[in-house]
């Protein structure tokens, strides 16, 4: 019982522990550019109380949500098709390989040349960033679907598109959702970076403007806010994921997130 | 001598329930004896073998080897698993050499010994193959050689031929008997095949359905060396097989009636 409560609280304890380390570290270093955790946490309400900032942050989230959804709609079918057809896979694989190590947010300056600094450029960049891991994981998931399962489906009279939706999609779902989880964190990162580069609005803009103006409390408070968004979104997604794929073996309760 | 003394094993399942896998097992195995454990799947045969191997410690009771309580695995008891469990990152030779090297045998010496063993199990020429490049029967031969290489006094074999086709199985049974008749190791052999148990063993321990208890111990008094072709025609062999099969049918019905 005790152990169970403890394991529920463990992430919270970890947060508190990390904040405590921060607090101790800043007291020890005692420089102006590294405020204590308490000072930074205190600055959070003043940002969230500011109408302009909140609108900015919500704008960021809206762009992220739209781009994320669009990316899923595009990436999951493509990945599944790649997983089930060698032809499709070998057609797209090299293209994906050369685009993978390119930082999508770095395309921002070029895309801004074409599309301007508006929402569209930022959403396009997030879309690109999310698509790759989702394609990759859907591809892996679909590839691992057992041939026999599809044969039984065909024997029961399912057509090829039906097999794709009724068999491949659910069988690959755990892997697809892992990709989505990675994509979610990636969306957040691309969002912050693209706003940092475009410097017009959004959470990333507030963060880096504060850095340039030397408002250190705001810098660290924004770090806390963006960090909390990442952790919160990830936790929410994990809840959804474990509900959707309850039949699958208990996987990892920590995300395989990256960049 | 192996003594299993009032051993019981309880597993906690994920639903926080207690599951009685073995119930009060007592069994003595003489040095040099070939003893088979026979029973329906899930009756705790593997668990019993793991306890003797020292991989699992019993919830109650003790198991002893040479009078000393078993506290962990040791090179005096060599396991051969149904899943082969070969090291995928080592070649056939590397796998077989692992034990002797671990025992401190010099590299050149271990190499020579291992090559002899590999030849003995009929895999000459495959020394530098990786496990993935071998068939199931060949992998099982490597697993046997790997265990024999560190000269355990006791062989613990968990359905070693269960995953093999009938033809390969027969060949490996003959090979195992030849090896055993030559160096008379103590063998504890888990199987669910009645034929196999009678063909190989001095003693067959028949277990009941879960929770596993010993239902009966049958002494197989058939002459050695045994030859399969002769044995199959031998009425005594046939009688043992039929007798034990009846016993197992009874235990299944025990299991059905609560």
């Amino acid at each position: 019982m005790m152990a169970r409560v403890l394991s529920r609280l463990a992430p919270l304890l970890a947060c508190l522990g990390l904040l405590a380390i921060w607090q101790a570290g800043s007291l020890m270093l005692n420089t102006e550019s590294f405020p204590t955790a308490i000072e930074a946490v205190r600055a959070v309400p003043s940002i969230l109380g500011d109408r302009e900032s909140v609108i900015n942050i919500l704008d960021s989230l809206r762009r992220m949500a739209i781009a994320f959804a669009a990316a899923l709609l595009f990436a999951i079918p493509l990945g599944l098709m790649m997983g089930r057809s060698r032809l499709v896979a070998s057609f797209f694989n090299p293209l994906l390989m050369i685009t993978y190590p390119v930082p999508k947010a770095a395309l921002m300056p070029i895309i801004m040349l074409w599309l301007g600094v508006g929402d569209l450029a930022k959403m396009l960049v997030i879309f690109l960033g999310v698509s790759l891991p989702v394609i990759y994981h859907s591809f892996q998931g679909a590839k691992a679907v057992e041939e026999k399962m599809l044969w039984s489906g065909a024997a029961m009279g399912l057509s090829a598109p039906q097999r794709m939706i009724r068999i491949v999609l659910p069988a690959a779902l755990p892997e697809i959702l892992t990709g989505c989880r990675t994509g979610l964190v990636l969306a957040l990162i691309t969002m912050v970076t693209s706003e940092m580069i475009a410097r017009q609005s959004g959470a990333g803009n507030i963060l880096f403007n504060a850095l340039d103006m030397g408002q250190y409390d705001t810098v660290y408070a924004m770090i806390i806010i963006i960090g909390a968004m990442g952790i919160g979104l990830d936790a929410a997604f994990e809840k959804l994921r474990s509900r959707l794929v309850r039949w699958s073996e208990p996987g990892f309760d920590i995300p395989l997130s990256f960049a | 001598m192996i003594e299993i003394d009032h051993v019981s094993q309880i597993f906690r399942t994920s639903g926080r329930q207690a599951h009685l896998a073995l119930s009060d097992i007592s069994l003595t195995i003489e040095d040099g004896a070939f003893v088979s454990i026979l029973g329906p799947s899930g009756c705790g045969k593997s668990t019993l073998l793991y306890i003797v191997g020292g991989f699992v410690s019993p919830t109650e009771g003790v198991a002893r080897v040479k009078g000393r309580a078993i506290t962990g695995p040791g090179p005096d008891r060599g396991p051969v698993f149904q899943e082969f469990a070969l090291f995928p990152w080592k070649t056939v030779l590397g796998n077989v050499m692992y034990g002797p090297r671990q025992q401190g045998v010099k590299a050149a010496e271990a190499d020579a010994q291992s090559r002899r063993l590999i030849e003995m199990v009929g895999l000459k020429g495959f020394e530098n193959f990786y496990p993935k490049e071998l068939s199931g029967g060949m992998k099982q031969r490597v697993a046997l050689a790997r265990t024999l290489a560190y000269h355990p006094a006791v062989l613990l074999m968990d359905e070693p031929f269960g995953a093999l086709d009938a033809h390969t199985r027969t060949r490996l049974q003959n090979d195992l008997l030849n090896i055993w008749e030559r160096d008379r190791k103590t063998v504890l052999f888990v199987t669910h095949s009645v034929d196999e148990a009678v063909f190989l063993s001095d003693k067959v321990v028949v277990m009941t359905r879960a929770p596993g208890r010993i239902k009966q111990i049958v002494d197989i008094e058939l002459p050695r060396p045994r030859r399969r072709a002769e044995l199959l025609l031998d009425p005594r062999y046939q009688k043992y097989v039929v007798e034990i099969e009846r016993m197992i049918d009874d235990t299944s019905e025990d299991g059905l009636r609560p």
Partner: protein
Amino acid sequence: MNARALTSEVLLGIIPIALAVALWQAISSFGYAPVTLLPPPGLVFSRLAQQLGTSNFQHEIASTLFRLFAGFSIAVILGVGIGLAAATNPVVNAVVRPIVRVLAPLPKVALYPALLLLLGFGHESKITLVAADALFPILLSTYYGASMVEQKLIWSAMAAGTPRRQILFKVVLPAAVPSILTGCRIGLVISCIVVFLAEMISSTDGLGHMLVTAARTFQAVDMFVPLITISLLGLILNGLLQGLRSYLLRGFPEV
């Protein structure tokens, strides 16, 4: 798979890349986009070839590679070490798990301002950011691989007389190598991405810095050059890692 099938697959894979380049060429040569927005591919690649010969450009690549390798190496050492420790020691596990759970989904770029303030604008802050981002995939796949090691491999080694404290290096680590290398591959891609971003945000040299400088002066050609370079670097490094992988995993069944 025979060689011919392999060749035809490679050819098939080149088609979309060739199409993309052709489309790019068409757009610029039929005048749909002015050269200032989309320079033709020939211009970009000849600029790249010309740049590759200059010591200036080589210097930029060298600083990017240095940061990338330093950060990636730190991530590999820490990730494999912590991952193995967490998989084999329950106390470490109890501490590491919740911390990783919190830190892994944290967008690390958001920490970059703090790193700049704490570690300065030099190599250290960028290397730390690269390491922080590449760490988690490596740590998690090490942990995953090490906790999935087949119990019977460990038992077989123990029965052969391997002492408990050697099991980690004789069985768990080699058995986890496939998974560790998968993590490293993801970590490497991330390192490429992150080092570039960090250099874009604040730097005086490196490929990312080149892009920002070019963007400020609207030199479209010079914006494409560093992007293509990082893509090629990623491709080469990935190829090297793939080579290492097929050497180390020669015994393992294909996955």
